[in-house]
């Protein structure tokens, strides 16, 4: 089985850190993996995405085929919607609720939330509040990772080890805050699915 995950966000939100953690976790389990990233100009506050694919057999394409993503994991709700054509019929969208408004024509927030809520499977997560609860707004990306974690088909300990590996150079308190954020996100997403 191969899992296809689209990570979506805005340059500077910590998207590549998420990708690195999931990648570490998959690698530690001996899985095959390909993870495509966006570098360079697009990272300057623009829309960024990462295609993450892992599984127990060799992976050919670095890019996900439209219509086959199991999960869109988004740090920003409009960016979640940008990749809907990639979502498989049974796929789920897990997104931060808070918009990142750095453009003049950002759509009405409620319209975006409504469109996500109209999807058969979705989680809209108040990542900012949960991150503050964990101790730092900067760990909102770990809250979203936690919220997406039940849908990654990776064991939780492997993901937690991934966090520890990626933040290995940081003080223990930073690692702990990120792990608390992850757990709060995971709990928030574990409520039964609506619709």
């Amino acid at each position, binding site marked *: 089985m191969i899992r296809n995950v689209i990570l979506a966000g805005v340059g500077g939100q910590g998207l590549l850190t998420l990708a690195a953690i999931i990648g570490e976790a998959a690698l530690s389990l001996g899985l095959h993996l390909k993870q495509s990233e*966006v570098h360079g100009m697009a990272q300057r506050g*623009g829309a960024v995405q990462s295609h993450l694919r892992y599984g127990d057999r060799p992976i050919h394409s670095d890019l996900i085929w439209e219509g086959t993503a199991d999960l869109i994991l988004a740090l920003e709700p409009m960016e979640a919607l940008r990749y809907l054509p990639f979502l498989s019929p049974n796929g789920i969208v897990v997104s931060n609720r808070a918009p990142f408004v*750095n453009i003049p024509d950002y*759509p009405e927030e409620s319209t975006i939330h409504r469109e996500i809520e109209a999807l058969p499977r979705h989680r809209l997560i108040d990542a900012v509040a949960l991150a503050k609860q964990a101790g730092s707004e900067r760990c909102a990306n770990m809250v979203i990772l936690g919220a997406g974690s039940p849908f990654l088909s990776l064991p939780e300990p492997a993901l937690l080890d991934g966090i520890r590996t990626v933040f290995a150079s940081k003080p223990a308190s930073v690692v702990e805050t990120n792990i608390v954020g992850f757990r709060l996100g995971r709990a928030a997403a574990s409520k039964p699915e609506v619709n």
Partner: protein
Amino acid sequence: MSIRLLLGDEALAQGALDAGISGVYAYPGTPSTEITEHVQKSDLGRSGAVRCRWSANEKTALEAALGMSYAGRRTMASMKHVGLNVAADPFVNAAISGTHGGLMINVADDPSMHSSQNEQDSRVYTDLALVPCIEPADQQEAYRTPAHALELSERHRVPVLVRLTTRLAHSRAPVTINTPRPQRPFSLPDDPDRFILLPSRARVSYERLVALQAALQQESEESPFNRFTDGPDRALGVIAAGIAHNYLMEVTDGAPNRPVLKIGQYPIPLRSLDRLFASCERVLVLEEGYPYIEAKLRGFPRRTEPTVLGRLNGALPRTGELSPAAVAAALGLPDLPRRPGSSVLSSRPPALCPGCPHADTCRAIVDALAPHRTAGRVFSDIGCYSLGALPPYRAIDTCIEMGASITMAKGAADGGLRPAVALIGDSTFTHSGMTGLLDCVTEGAPVTIVIVDNLTVAMTGGQPSAARDRLERISEGIGVDPRHIRVIEPHPKRHAEFVALLAEEIAHDGPSVVIARRECIQTARRGIRRTEGGAE
């Protein structure tokens, strides 16, 4: 043997380290930057055992690499596709002189222009220079490429082009790493005359290069990077080059069930091509970038003349990068069920960071030009400051290529434009702006040159700038009147002062250099973080 998770760029760099290179020469450029950065971060790079500092531009990089090859060492130059334009002169002529130690030239193409001004295909350059090219399909092949390319280079004393494209350059996968081999010892060529390209000797060297083509063709026929796989469905055969092969395997679940020629080394392997053409009614060409192979196949009638399908007949989009969906459609596979795109999206282009010094410079230029109504023009080029073209700044009128700001402003001034302003970054200035400034000084051209000095190569991630602490002295040394070399900190608090300074220099009937100096907000932040880390 070990397994590491590496970007395509990093896999290539690791392969080069393990193949015993003694140096890498490069100028940063997306998507090639991480090749050199991987060497810089490696033990061999950090200890100085492998030379790896950034060069001033791609031309100096490739020339230095050729010099290291002359000294008998294995080496490589790395750049993005448009960097090869800058380095085209040494590229074409190094093929004629030939090499001594193995020399590979890594070029990362950017189809779909994710971070570039065009999507030119570097394979076209191999026809100009008559050199072989390796195009790896995945990260493991990228790792294997240097050992193969450097041996090929040494066997035939010819530089080898290595072509990557964005999706391989910037995609990670586990890569199996082999035991490294030692560097080659210093040695000089025993036939040094071929490096003297005076016409009489250049003709001899060029004849050697032309005569070499048959051997390079034979290399392609036998290359492990080219592979013909037969299959039962002969109605449609497929040629898949580089990462296009991955998309083919993806959409057919690893079993295309038809004849497939995977191409990863050029010149195009003709023997396998003959087999494919002999057995198939139609042939679909899957390749990232230009229809390079496809164009060569059209109009060359072979024995059975199958119909060729690809980007030129609409089977695939003529421009932009390939995707699994595009390849599936070209193969005639049914569409997967997919959701329509959202109707409420706004585009979110990249933008200058909040607090970016370039934003202050853009605002000052716009206000300084306001009294001239719509007469003035601002010529710029490649860097984060190119984003000054977008709202809310709308501060620049042109962005063509590295260094074109100063020279275009001069030409426009020659043509009668007043005021003519150039906006160029610190690193772009030392990359290819200095010679243009010399032209301005030679003729006393009335051009106001604003150098936005953020003390780094910002757009590619904050590499050290060769311009650091040198801009005033370079400008003065080139001959700009010291009274018209001005320095200011671009900052909202100093906006009025900046506008007044620009107005004075715009009024000057000769070349001025205005250095707007404030550190990139990104590198400044990282610097702060480093300090904090040290305190903890």
